[in-house]
């Protein structure tokens, strides 16, 4: 063959492989409103930056006549590219080829690009759209999953790992996304579950649709498995680009810095947001927007455990992770879900050199038998663990109330916050004034001529003496009591000062967090 013939031969081979599952399967994929795997990769990455590898990989199935079948790319597309200027490794399962099912070589392509990402220290993006294990390959399919999980774990905390669920993701397959940092889901497209509706019905007699069992909304609102919810694939890709702009490529780098921009103070007037009556709600996101650059707050897990708010924003051009109690929902209490949500985010920020800003306004932990029996102790402990362990700059602002265990947990000085600020109407106490007065002045109230009157008087007395930031400030537990409109200034300065913070910890293999 001449060189020209060889080139023609290559082109023909590529054409065949790029057809994927063929026009019929592609049509079917499109009919359900989904893009094809290659279209998805191209839509996410910067134009003309995608470079595909392992296009000619052949599947390894030998039994059940599988050896006679041709599966282009073995149902998965892998490669590298540039995303908003960041180098990334990426793979996308191709549902049009054998339902995106995972066989040994399919898994090998994925683990190869994962190894690449870890060696090159760049983010990894995985697009999941697969019917699950390729049954014909038996234990080799299981082996493939195991190899992926192992690498997910090795890469955890070293490179950002992003999972995009754009189709079914069932059985063992769900554990790879669960091990990664951020999971993106799209309404009516994403489905995740361990055992599908069929099995649930035959084994347990419970009837449920795929959407109700493990649809995008379920994971965004109820389970917390998903971090970002989108109405369409395009919206989802925009969210990924947005996220990438806030985080560093790997654990040795810092996130990109941008020119500092003032917040939109005409819209978000910090003095007008918080009612001084601690029983009245407000939206803490408005406070964040009144403080951060350009009032741009990128919220994570918006619909799950909404009593705590987490997300990225910038202060003076630098990425910070915000953790804030949300008085608008469940009075901002810490409970099982909100503790899990906050603790994991704190560990993420710590792993990737992102300073933490904690805004405190909470009445404590949620009381109740259901919470206690479901293990609020060990879940709540995760917050203490995560904050204590974190060595990135930690800055706390107590906005209003900080009662009891909640005060300690929300990155107090005692968990080694670098700076703790409080607004003038902050109330820091072992419990709310009503409860405290009832206990401390129990006898006076009981023996008074008019107990109700006495109770009211004692609550008032207690409030005046203790429900303020100055008792804590007198012990040095608060570094400065500041006016709300000075907050941004204090935070930016604190970040500048702690820019080179290094903290050496006792050498150990790893801690044992209350998982």
């Amino acid at each position, binding site marked *: 063959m001449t060189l020209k013939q060889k080139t023609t031969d290559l082109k023909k081979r590529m054409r065949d492989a790029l057809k994927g599952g063929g026009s019929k399967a592609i049509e079917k994929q499109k009919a359900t409103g989904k893009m094809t795997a290659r279209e998805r990769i191209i839509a996410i990455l910067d134009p003309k930056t995608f470079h595909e590898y392992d296009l000619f990989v052949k599947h390894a199935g030998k039994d059940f006549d599988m050896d006679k079948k041709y599966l282009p790319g073995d149902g998965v597309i892998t490669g590298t590219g540039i995303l908003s200027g960041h180098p990334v490794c990426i793979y996308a399962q191709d549902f049009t080829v054998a339902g995106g099912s995972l066989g040994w070589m399919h898994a090998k392509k994925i683990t190869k690009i994962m190894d690449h990402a870890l060696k090159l220290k760049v983010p990894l993006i995985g697009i999941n759209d697969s019917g699950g294990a390729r049954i014909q390959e038996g234990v080799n399919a299981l082996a493939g999953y195991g190899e992926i999980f192992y690498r997910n774990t090795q890469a955890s905390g070293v490179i950002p790992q992003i999972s995009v669920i754009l189709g079914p993701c069932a059985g063992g397959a769900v554990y790879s996304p669960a091990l990664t940092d951020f999971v993106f889901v799209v309404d009516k497209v994403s489905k995740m579950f361990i055992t599908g509706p069929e099995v649930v019905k035959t*084994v*347990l*007699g*419970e009837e449920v649709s795929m959407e109700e069992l493990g649809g995008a909304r379920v994971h965004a*609102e*109820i389970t917390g498995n998903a971090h970002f919810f989108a109405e369409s694939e395009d919206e989802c890709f925009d969210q990924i680009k947005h996220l990438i702009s806030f985080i560093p490529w790997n654990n040795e780098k810092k996130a990109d810095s941008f020119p500092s921009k003032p917040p939109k103070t005409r819209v978000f007037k910090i003095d007008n947001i918080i009612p001084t009556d*601690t*029983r*009245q*709600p407000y939206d803490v996101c408005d406070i964040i927007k009144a403080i951060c650059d350009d009032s741009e707050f990128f919220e994570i897990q918006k619909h799950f*455990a*909404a*009593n705590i708010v987490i997300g990225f924003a910038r202060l003076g051009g630098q990425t910070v992770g915000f953790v804030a109690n949300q*008085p*608008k*929902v*469940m*009075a*901002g*209490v810490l409970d099982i*879900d909100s503790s899990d949500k906050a603790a994991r985010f704190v560990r993420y920020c710590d792993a990737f050199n992102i300073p933490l800003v904690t805004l405190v306004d909470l*009445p*404590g932990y*949620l*009381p*109740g*038998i*259901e919470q206690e*029996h479901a293990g609020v102790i060990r879940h709540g402990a995760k917050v203490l663990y995560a904050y204590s362990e974190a060595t990135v700059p930690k800055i706390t602002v107590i906005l209003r109330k900080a*009662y009891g265990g909640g005060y300690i947990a929300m990155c107090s000085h005692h968990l080694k916050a670098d700076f703790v600020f409080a607004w003038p109407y902050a109330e820091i106490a072992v*419990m*709310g*004034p*009503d*409860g405290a007065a*009832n206990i401390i002045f129990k006898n006076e109230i009981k023996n008074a001529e008019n107990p109700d009157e006495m109770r009211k008087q004692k609550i008032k007395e207690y409030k005046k003496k203790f429900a303020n930031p100055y008792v804590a400030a007198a012990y040095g537990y608060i570094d400065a009591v500041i006016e709300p409109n000075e907050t941004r200034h204090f935070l930016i300065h604190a970040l500048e000062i702690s820019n080179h913070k290094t903290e050496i910890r006792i050498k150990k293999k790893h801690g044992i967090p209350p998982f």
Partner: protein
Amino acid sequence: MEEKKIIYKTLNIENIKYKTFLTNKFLLRQQYQKNDLTKITAFIPGKISKIYVKKGRKVKIGDKLLILEAMKMKNDIISSINGIIMQINIKEGDLVTKKDILIELKYLN
């Protein structure tokens, strides 16, 4: 600025009533029920493959009452009390769902 009328609910924590939204998860939480050892319930949906006892029989702690077959496993269901069988609501071969009351006992001192 136009103020939207928002209806908040109340959450009581340590005698302080906070105005706030409540989550669905909180509203749908299961009410706590005391464990009643005299009522043998199905802990999992399945098939009754064997019943060892009859109405009126005395049983001791640890006595086998029945076999509940589920998830390809034959589960021995045993008595947690010393008592007497008051009522048997099932027969061999019955399919039961979770939380069905299978056998009712009475404490015997």
